[in-house]
């Protein structure tokens, strides 16, 4: 990368002009060239989190555990809701850890550029790097929580099927949902000041609109497809199938997965279209 003797190789000429046209391209090549910076962003977020919070790792474990315990008691024990044939504790905890990953990831992504305002105003880098990098640290938490899930399954005598080989794909599906929503919200958050207030609310609504603590099996027939317009449905069912041996996802979940893919593509297109204004409006 370093070039100390300009004479040796003729340096490339960069042309800077107003961008025209509807879509400036995905810019994936440049994103790849800057991957190290993305890694540094992710690393910084991890370092900060483990420095600033007193509990550190314990906190990432406790949060989903506490939430799962509350839901297992209220919804599983008291309301006796169905749980796809799984012990309710395993059902809920597996849902909560994926949900926690997506929710924290999208929130971090949405805030990423605004929190790094001084960088946006003073340094060039592919702006997409920030929301994408913001999703990554959550993978470590997910891995830790997944180990705890293993303990739960052993205690509850639940064994995963051979579908567990597809687990990485299920995690990828969750990453796609988190990044898709996160990139959209990040671009909006830079431009509009009220987005950050809507964020908490949006995440809450989404939680109840997704089969995190309530199985989608309570929804009948054709309504399933409407429900599956929520990309979280596919991600959660895919994860439960691969990780804890839940029922294999059907056609609605597939539709949900396609919606998730469409979401991330649309998000990147929108982001690339508006990012040229970021340094001026942030």
């Amino acid at each position, binding site marked *: 990368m370093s070039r100390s003797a300009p004479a040796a190789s003729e340096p490339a000429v960069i042309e800077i002009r107003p961008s025209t046209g509807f879509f400036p391209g995905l810019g994936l090549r440049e994103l790849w060239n800057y991957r190290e910076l993305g890694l540094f962003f992710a690393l910084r977020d991890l370092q900060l989190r483990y420095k600033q919070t007193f509990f550190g790792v314990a906190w990432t474990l406790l949060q989903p555990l506490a939430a799962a315990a509350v839901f297992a008691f209220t919804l599983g024990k008291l309301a006796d809701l169905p749980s796809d044939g799984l012990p309710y504790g395993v059902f809920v905890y597996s849902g909560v850890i994926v949900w926690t990953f997506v929710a924290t990831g999208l929130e971090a992504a949405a805030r990423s550029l605004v929190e790094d305002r001084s960088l946006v105003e003073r340094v060039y880098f592919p702006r997409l790097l920030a929301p994408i990098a913001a999703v990554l640290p959550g993978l470590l938490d997910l891995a830790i929580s997944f180990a705890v899930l293993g303990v739960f399954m052993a205690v509850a005598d639940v064994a995963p099927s051979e579908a567990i080989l597809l687990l990485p794909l299920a995690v990828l599906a969750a990453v796609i949902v988190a990044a898709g929503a996160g990139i959209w919200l990040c671009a909006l958050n830079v431009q509009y*000041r009220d987005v950050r207030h809507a964020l908490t609310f949006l995440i809450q609504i989404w939680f109840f609109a997704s089969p995190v603590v309530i199985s989608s099996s309570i929804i009948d027939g054709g309504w399933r497809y409407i429900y599956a317009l929520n990309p979280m449905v596919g991600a959660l069912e895919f994860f439960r199938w691969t990780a804890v041996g839940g029922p294999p996802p059907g056609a609605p979940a597939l539709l949900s997965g396609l919606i998730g893919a469409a979401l991330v593509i649309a998000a990147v297109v929108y982001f690339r279209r508006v990012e040229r204004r970021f340094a001026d*409006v942030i």
Partner: protein
Amino acid sequence: MNARHTIETRGLGKRYQLGEGGSYQTLREMLASLVRGRRPQSARGPEMIWALRDLDLTIDDGEAVGLIGRNGAGKTTLLKILARITEPTTGVARVRGRVGALLEVGTGFHPELTGRENVFLNGAVLGMSRSDTRRRFDDIVAFAGVERFLDTPLKRYSAGMYLRLAFSVAAHLEPDVVVVDEVLAVGDTEFQQKCLMKMSEFGSEGRTVVFVSHDLGAVARLCPRMVWLDKGQIAADGESQAVVDAYLKSGIGAGAKVDFAPDGAKPAQMLSVLVTDASGRPASALPRTEPFEIALRFSVIERIPGLDVSAYLINSRGVHVFHEGWADHASLGESIGAPGEYEAVLTVPAVLPAGEYTLGVWIGTEVEDLFWEEPLRFRLQPTSHDREEAIRRSRVIQLSSPWRVSPRLHPGE
């Protein structure tokens, strides 16, 4: 593009919308206007301002060029376009090679991280690969002189250490083109000297340097060529001293008082700047033998912790004669950043020689410039018995204290 040109701009322009953000500040407004089917501000039309306009500029390989001009003349906008931070509205800029932009020292530094972690993070932010940073790590740390504090969080660093480390990372970049904005505005004299040394090294290594500073003297020393921007256009381009002379002679608000249009986006606003004689009368020509006053009127819209105000004077050779900050004296306590309208008056004792002076004023905090302009030029008049030769003598201050000369009654004792 000519092979020798490193930077070439053709018809480069940048238009900003006045006021914060774009036409919509909130998503709610935007959605509401979609529903109503019209844009909310279409009646008035947003106010536009050209920060740069039709700029044609060529800079050759290995040239060091200074950019000067008043605040809002487009200097920083030009640097930001060259560094690809913001997009031009019209025209094109071509840049040969990798651009290292230093628009602020310590961009991306995080107080909670250690010195070591920050060096790597900041290196990455400025475009260094991890292996590059690792290779230069020892040099960076040695240049900054912070070896003992590498594993200390940055928040425990003194301001000086922080700046030294920040500049050191930037100084060890190896870009083909360096664009630098006002880095000399911070730090003590020793630090500024170090910066200047490093900057002239950049120049002698054959890198192309574009340098912005309010310190005309520093720019002139570093850059044989200068470009003076005024209202987004080139007012003069050529040999440094000639451009500085023209700049200082230009009628930048020659007079005793300047009023400013409010800038709605800023939490503190300068209202007016005034130069008065000892009896409080505004004057653009003052006797050098009497003290005079500089009065700044400003308003604070929302509370600004650590608010500071300063004024400085530049003489006709570009030397900063003094630079006095409000916070230099005592701590002014909590009341300092409270909302309200203020008048700050500085009395300048009668120690300056006759000549032309440019007054610069600034409002800001340790981390942010809220207002910075050099709005006034005024004259200190010689007295009637000052000799012509004494007026033209090269000096920064004039003590006016008489010599006591007496004959030695017993020489050799």
